[in-house]
């Protein structure tokens, strides 16, 4: 039998090599699959241990377990997100930031990672960056219940802005929610409170009315609505709502305080509609008396000549003998005098509190 030619022998050997490549490739894929499966099982076991530790508040232990889990299954983003949360809870903000940076590098739209990063940055006092990450969380991707999670992230941002008294930014965050208010009335009530805090009582009132439509016996909603109406100088409506709130929840101290304030205002305000001429005059005299006392107290024992002149005029005004026909004119001049006295009082230190009944009435007269 003739010996095979070198080329044929070469070809035969090469064919065997390719056959070996195919066979080992198949074996590798099997082994790799087996490793991945076993790694996933081990990772899941360690992750469960980590979650149990988190539930017990043992965050350091949890970090160790979840770290081990991630080393078995590096691609699992849930593990790494939970790791970052545990690191944050343990106060290891640097580690949490590193974990989250890594996560966000591979997917910058990760909502939960962005939210956790925002929390880390808040804890580190880096508020500007935190706001940016809150926005990423609000507009980011969530694996489940995206709308609710996005809303929760926005509320967290809103709370931060409210806490930092950033009214313009707060309004910018609140307005998108107002367009599509949440179905949950509790969230709407919270939103109403935030609008109140931000200084948009009309929007707050609308939200509280909506809440009362869904939950007619909600004391907080009545109290909130009362506050919104009070801020819009609708004192009578506010008084009614505070009263309703107290009827539903007698221990609501805030509502009681607000009701007292509304009551006081309603007995003091001379500009209220429906007041008789005599009552309006009486209230103007009372205002001159109160503003005069404030101005006198402010000036002390040695008032300036201009102020002294005003005080003298005020003294005459509080003991009037005015005929019914002149009561209307007298009331107007009393209110002018009260305004002048109040303006003099304003220069005192400390300035009068803005939420006192007298200040509120004077502000209303100035309008």
């Amino acid at each position: 039998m003739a010996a095979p030619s070198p080329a044929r022998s070469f070809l035969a050997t090469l064919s065997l090599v390719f056959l070996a490549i195919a066979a080992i490739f198949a074996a590798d894929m099997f082994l790799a699959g087996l490793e991945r499966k076993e790694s996933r099982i081990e990772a899941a076991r360690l992750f469960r241990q980590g979650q149990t530790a988190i539930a017990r508040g043992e965050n350091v232990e949890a970090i160790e377990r979840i770290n081990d889990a991630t080393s078995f299954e590096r691609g699992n983003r849930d593990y790494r997100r939970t790791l970052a949360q545990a690191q944050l809870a343990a106060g290891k903000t640097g580690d949490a930031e590193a974990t989250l940076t890594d996560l966000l590098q591979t997917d910058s739209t990760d909502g939960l990672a962005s939210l956790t990063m925002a929390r880390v940055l808040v804890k580190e006092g880096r508020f500007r960056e935190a706001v940016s990450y809150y926005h990423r969380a609000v507009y980011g991707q969530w694996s489940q219940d995206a709308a609710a999670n996005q809303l929760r992230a926005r509320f967290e941002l809103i709370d931060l802005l409210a806490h930092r008294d950033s009214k313009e930014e707060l309004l910018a965050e609140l307005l998108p929610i107002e367009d599509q208010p949440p179905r949950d009335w509790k969230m709407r009530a919270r939103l109403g409170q935030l609008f109140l805090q931000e200084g948009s009582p009309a929007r707050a009132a609308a939200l509280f009315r909506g809440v009362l439509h869904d939950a007619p016996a909600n004391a907080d909603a009545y109290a909130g609505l009362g506050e919104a109406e009070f801020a819009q100088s609708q004192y009578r409506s506010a008084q009614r709502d505070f009263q309703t709130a107290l009827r539903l929840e007698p221990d609501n101290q805030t509502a009681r305080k607000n009701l007292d304030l509304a009551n006081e205002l309603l007995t003091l305000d001379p500009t209220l509609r429906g007041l008789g001429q005599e009552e309006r005059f009486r209230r103007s005299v009372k205002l001159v008396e109160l503003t005069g006392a404030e101005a006198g107290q402010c000036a002390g024992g040695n008032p300036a000549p201009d102020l002294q002149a005003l005080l003298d005029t005020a003294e005459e005004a509080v003991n009037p003998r005015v005929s019914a026909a002149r009561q209307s004119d007298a009331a107007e001049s009393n209110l002018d005098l009260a305004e002048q006295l109040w303006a003099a009082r304003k220069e005192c230190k400390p300035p009068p509190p803005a939420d006192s009944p007298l200040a509120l009435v004077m502000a209303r007269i100035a309008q």
Partner: protein
Amino acid sequence: MDNGEQPSWLSRLAGSLERLRQREDQMTLVLSVVIGALVSLVVVAFILLTGRLAARMYPPGGSGWRRILVPTLGSLGTGYLLWRYFPFARGSGIPQTKYALFIHDGRIRFRTVFGKFFCCSASLASGIALGREGPSVQVGAGIASVVARNLGLETKQVKALVSAACAAALAAAFNTPIAAVLFTLEEIMGDLHAEVLGSVVLSSVTSWVVLHLVLGDEPLFHVPAYRLVHPAEFGVYAVLGVVGGLGSVCFVKLLLGLRAWFMRLPKSTVWVQPAVGGLAVGLMGYFVPEVLGVGYNQVEKVLNGDIVLQLVVLLAVLKIVATAVCYGSGNAGGIFGPSLFMGSMMGAAVGGVAHTLFPNYTAGPGAYALVGMGTAFAGIVRTPLTSVIMIFEMTRDYTIIVPLMISNMIAFFISYKLQKEPIYEALAHQDGVHLPTHHSRSESERLQVSQAMRSAPVVLSPDMRIGPALHKVEDGAFDAWPVVGAGGLWGMIRTNDLEQAAEDGASNKKIAEILDHRPPTGHPSAEEFPHVHLDNSLSLALQRMGAIRLNVLPVVSRENLRQLIGIVALNDVLSAYGVAKAAGEPERRR
């Protein structure tokens, strides 16, 4: 075909392959790709199999006695197999691969490959404190050797493919294709400009691609992005270099000392010696489980700053001892992985102390662990360039490069000063093998033409008549003489040619008429116009003298090849090597 039939596709393919086979260089390049893929798949199988075996030997929550029993029995079993069936599969694999390349014409037996694969897999899985990379290199090189020889390739091609397979194996084992190329050239070939560069690169890249195909794109270690906190940190990295260098020397000396001790024991105990390593590591592992195995998960932890200082120091010390005992006692496994482990622990220890003392000026221990890996590698394996690139590829973190270079060079320098012989050289010497070393190669390149050059005793002119020229040179000792005319050196004229011309009755002819070379124009090559430069090595001068069969060469300027600086003669070259006496007078031409 003789019978008029069309050749079958098989015949056509065989014909094409035969034509390709005739073009050796192209064939080697094509086969480098095939070998790269095959070796990568085998190494991946080796790693995966070892990992799965280890997972079964040490299930989660396993009891302490396992940690003593498994490595002892594992090393005892594999020790017997190594002694009885696979004697060439002991140890790391790197020196054995070098033996094959430099002594055995690239021959590695399939039996050795088989033994290395399974014995190493079993011993590493049992918890022996050695690495998988060195064995992967030997397995890869062995596969290439077997395939290349069965393909009927020339020795030169076999050796080229063995080198390529080394790179492929390392690229697959470490997931570091560039470092694999560098290591193959720097350590295994000992020459960064080796001819096999193309094959090595192709093979490494193919291996890396196949690795990614099977296991995906994951670096060996995941580390946070570290950055230099303060320029003063360079000082701490320098300290790390010192610590890493000293630690490396301790490890190498301990390993060599223990190996020498084991080698002095009676031959009949060779099969049981590995069990000593297994028992030692088992006892350590009973108390500190982290010391078992290659320990890459511990390295990852320390890189992330997750191990406390005391444990880090303890692990560094225990790993040095465990690896030295395991290797010295003859277990199968490498020292790459353990080097990285020791380095990371030493780095974390230095970094931990520095961070405790100067928290505002230093990064956390993880950054130092990262640099420490390269530092120990540079100190132990003595391939500083490879170690820098390797750490970069492993971590994909560029910011750490500069501290890494500083630390590496210091460790390399200390290691070089305190342990003259690099570890693989020393291991080969213990085996009674003397491999060509980088040092010996550079020594031969060290002697330069300038050390043997002299001024030309006779310079001929192209216009000179042959008769007077012959008279002028007949007492001279050289085979040829420089001819310098307008424009500089025209070339060298052989005395034989002058004599022949005179015999032919052409004594009145001018030298220019019989000179091979034309008047100076263009830029002739060394082949057309044999010459050397002042900074060429004497070995090159000898090589060129041999090629043109002359005992003298002109020494010319690098700037202008036609500018004669002097001549270099054979006798002066030999004298520079100390072979011949320094020639006061040149030897007579025979």
